[in-house]
């Protein structure tokens, strides 16, 4: 409670009678870069719109810096939102897009001009001040949208899938850019993403959401190495998940013994943790894909399908050949069922 800057308490959100976020509790610290991560449709955008004040609460409360904002109108909250679609003003050029909010504050002309210049400079768009959004690339529009929010010096900046409309190279570039802007400005940021690698790379803490509920909250290290639920494990790359009871694991097709003792619940392996070539399990290669440094196998076995990935230096196994593999104790993630 003590260091919460943004605090969501028992937040519930609904469209008409359909509740999409039943009960959300979340404390965000000042200056933190937090990621809302989850599959499409889990309520990330809805939560963000509620924080911004664009949607009324079905229940619970939102407070910022200790002040209850649940009923404060969106234009009085001092929160910035970078829309997934950028939502730039098509009739205004880059300069005027960024100046929009400053003009509403009725700042003196010189202050507006210097503010806008600094804003455009931060995102590297000074040379395009006269361009209309339609004359800019996706990445430039994205940065313009960011600048437009940043110059308002919001208490919290929300970003809805800020990188998802960009191509792969630009996405990496913007990632670093976002991180730099956050370091430079120290603004508390919440960004939405459905891409775990983006969340891992950028966030101080990750909120993993599922069906409007928090599945797990923690540092990237926590979520990547110590997912606490089968859903979280699957989301962070433990693609081989089985039920375990005693020394027997059970997959969708059937059961098999393992050669170590595990706590009852789930056992999960990343594809890279599975050894192939020898071991106590037997299967048939169903698919093989070359992925540069790795070769990725799909193997049919009595448990169901297994995904394994091994160094491409190892000799390849043809589709249809039978193969031995091992589910080693090292690299096995144990998940307790609560």
């Amino acid at each position: 409670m003590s260091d919460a800057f943004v605090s969501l308490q028992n937040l519930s959100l609904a469209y008409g009678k359909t509740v999409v976020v039943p009960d959300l509790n979340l404390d965000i610290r000042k200056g933190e870069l937090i990621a809302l991560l989850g599959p499409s449709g889990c309520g990330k955008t809805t939560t963000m719109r509620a924080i911004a004040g664009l949607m009324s609460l079905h229940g619970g409360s939102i407070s910022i810096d200790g002040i209850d904002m649940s009923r404060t109108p969106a234009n009085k909250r001092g929160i910035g939102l970078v829309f997934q679609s950028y939502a730039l003003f098509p009739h205004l050029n880059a300069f005027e897009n960024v100046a929009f909010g400053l003009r509403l504050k009725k700042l003196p002309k010189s202050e507006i001009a210097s503010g806008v210049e600094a804003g455009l400079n931060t995102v590297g768009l000074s040379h395009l001040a006269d361009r209309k959004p339609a004359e800019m690339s996706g990445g430039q529009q994205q940065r313009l949208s960011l600048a437009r929010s940043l110059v308002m010096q919001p208490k919290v900046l929300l970003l809805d899938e800020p990188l998802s409309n960009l191509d792969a190279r630009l996405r990496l570039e913007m990632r670093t850019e976002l991180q730099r802007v956050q370091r430079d400005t120290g603004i508390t940021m919440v960004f939405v993403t459905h891409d775990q690698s983006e969340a891992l790379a950028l966030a101080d803490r990750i909120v993993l959401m599922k069906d409007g509920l928090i599945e797990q909250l923690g540092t990237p290290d926590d979520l990547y190495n110590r997912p606490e639920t089968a859903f979280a494990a699957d989301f962070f790359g433990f693609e081989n998940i089985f039920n375990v009871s005693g020394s027997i694991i059970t997959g969708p097709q059937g059961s098999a013994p393992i050669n170590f003792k595990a706590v009852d619940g789930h056992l999960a392996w990343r594809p890279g943790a599975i050894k192939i070539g020898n071991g106590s399990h037997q299967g048939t290669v169903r698919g093989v894909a070359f992925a540069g440094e790795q070769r990725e196998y799909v193997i049919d076995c009595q448990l169901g399908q297994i995904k394994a990935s091994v160094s491409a230096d190892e000799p390849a196994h043809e589709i249809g050949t039978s193969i031995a593999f091992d589910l080693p104790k090292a690299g096995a993630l144990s998940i307790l069922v609560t």
Partner: protein
Amino acid sequence: MTSTWTSRIIIGLTLTFLIGPFFIIIAAGLSAGDFLAFPPEGLTLKWYIKVFEVESFRDSFALSMFLAVFGTIAALMLGVPAAYALSRYKIPYGETIKTVVAAPIIVPGIIVGLALLRYLVVPLSFTITLALFLAHTALVLPYAVRVVSSSLNNLRSDMEEAAVLLGCSRIGAFFRVVLPNIQSGVLAAFILGFVTSFNQVPVSLFLSGPGVRTLPIDMLSYMEITYDPSVAALSALLAFMSVVIVFVAEKFLGFSRYV
């Protein structure tokens, strides 16, 4: 081969029926004889000049202009907010409202005119001019709502939310970001409304009184007395005005997108 010829003939016929009358009117207005005639009997420009000398034409032209301009402006002042509300908010019975707003397009104008005369002008002793103004506003309103709606539907609503988050009120966002982006739709609605109102006959038929007539009605009554080619000349001038307006609108606005 055959099908190209068939389509050429069809296009030719269509154009003849659409544009042919226009040329007949221009020619008839140039006729030197004292009566409306086609083909023209000799050529003269005197009827085109006479049009500007007939006093009742000048008065009724002024009235028609007034109705077309201010009736359309009034229709837009009602229609733009209505279209905005219909497109952005879930309004109870929104669909019904749309149908009702479109009613003047469906109901024959002559009935609207009669109804206004019977229930407004006579019992409430409205002046004819006021009744005409109301009638033309109502007549143009459906076009205003429709044309503006279609340009609003092309405008993403998250822009308005962005404006609100930057400090605008909802109404402020409408004026600062919605209106500038539907400008050409509003202008297109104005032009369509203007032309519709200006050329309107049936609604205005019942709404005329001593010295108060719209131009088309005035032309009708002029023809009952005088059958000279000046009416053809005037028609040609009016048709030319409409064509120029629509042509300019198409060139600068891409007018046909909206209608």
